[in-house]
Every structure is written in C-alpha cells, then in structure tokens.
C-alpha cells in the first residue's frame, strides 16, 4: 500500500512560520495543520497546492508517495 509522507513541518520550520500563521495563510484551522504534519489527515488538492504555493515548492516536494 502506498504511504504518503509529508514534509510540511520541515519547510515550515525552515521558513520560521508558526502552525497558526500557516493555517491563517491557507485559510484553515490550526488543528488541520497539526493533523497534516502528524500524518493524520489527507488534504484536498486545493489545500495541498495552497501550502505548496506558500513554501514556493511543488506539491510533489511537500507530499511524497512511497510504496
């Protein structure tokens, strides 16, 4: 089964952005960002693209599927 790995936390820490700030930037609750970072939430394509836009990376760089 394919496993989705997220790199949001690394990019967020690199940019020195708080979870609440990132949540505000992409228009979601802080809890959603927490779940995303902990791998407990599967985001919509729009949210994934919005986050990728904030970090100026591609969606593939943020989310990676591994077998």
């Amino acid at each position, binding site marked *: 089964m394919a496993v989705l790995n997220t790199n949001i936390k690394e990019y967020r820490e690199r940019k020195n952005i708080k979870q609440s700030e990132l949540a505000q930037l992409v228009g*979601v*609750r802080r809890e*959603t960002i927490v779940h995303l970072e902990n*791998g407990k*939430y599967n985001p*919509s394509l729009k*949210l994934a693209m919005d986050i990728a836009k904030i970090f100026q990376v591609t969606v593939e760089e943020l989310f990676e599927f591994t077998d």
Partner: protein
Amino acid sequence: MNKKQINLSTQYMLKSFIILLMLILYMASRENFGFSYYEPVVSKLYYGCLLLYGLIGLIWKNEEIDESAERILGKVSGICLNAATLGLIILALFVAAPMFKGLFISRDLIGLLLFILLFLITALKSILFYVFDRRGLYNGSIKH
C-alpha cells in the same frame, strides 16, 4: 469592536450546555417539582436560552468550518443522525405502537423525553467532534 473567537469544539459544547439548561428549566417548570410559583421567571429564562442558542454566533465569533472540520462533522453528523433516529423510533414505539395502547404517557413526559434526547444528541455531537478533532481522522495510507 472585535468579538472574541471561540473554536468549534467550544461552540458545540456551549450549545449542548444551553440545551442542558433548558432541560433543567423544563423540569423546574413542571408542577411536580413545586416550582409552579416561579413559572413566569422560568418561562422567560427558557425563552432566553432558546434565543441564546440561535444567536450564539452573533455574541461570539465562530471559528470557520474548514475542510478537515467539514470531514469530521460529516462523520459526527452521521452518527448523531443514527442516534436521533434510534431515539425517535423508541419514543414512537411507546407513544404510537398499538401494543402500548394501554400505556398512558402524558404530554409532559413526552416533552421531557424529547428534551433528554435532544440533550443526548447535542452532547454526543460535541464530545465526538472534540475527540475526532483531537485524534484526527486517521487514514491508514498516510504516514509522517
């Protein structure tokens, strides 16, 4: 003036608390409990609670429902709807089923049972939302 924002869990817990307050007021207004003397005050409080339940979003700024909250609410609402249906089926069984024709159920008792059911559903909704919001809707294919 900036209104204080309350998160969704708190919002649902407040609503559940208001229903509990209404249930207590309903029980207090029943003559059996000896509060009939204070009925006008209790009635005003009751309608105040009803108003507060409807206008809660105007008093405090509610947190926006985002996509994860929407997904959690979808799951929670499904569970609550099943619980409500089950409760109403049981109530309908006692009130309308021919086999309980001889059983006398007063209007007060039906009202009380409906209030209890309403409180249980709102409490269940707030608890389930809180639990799922803390735990997250785990998807087995995602790993950090």
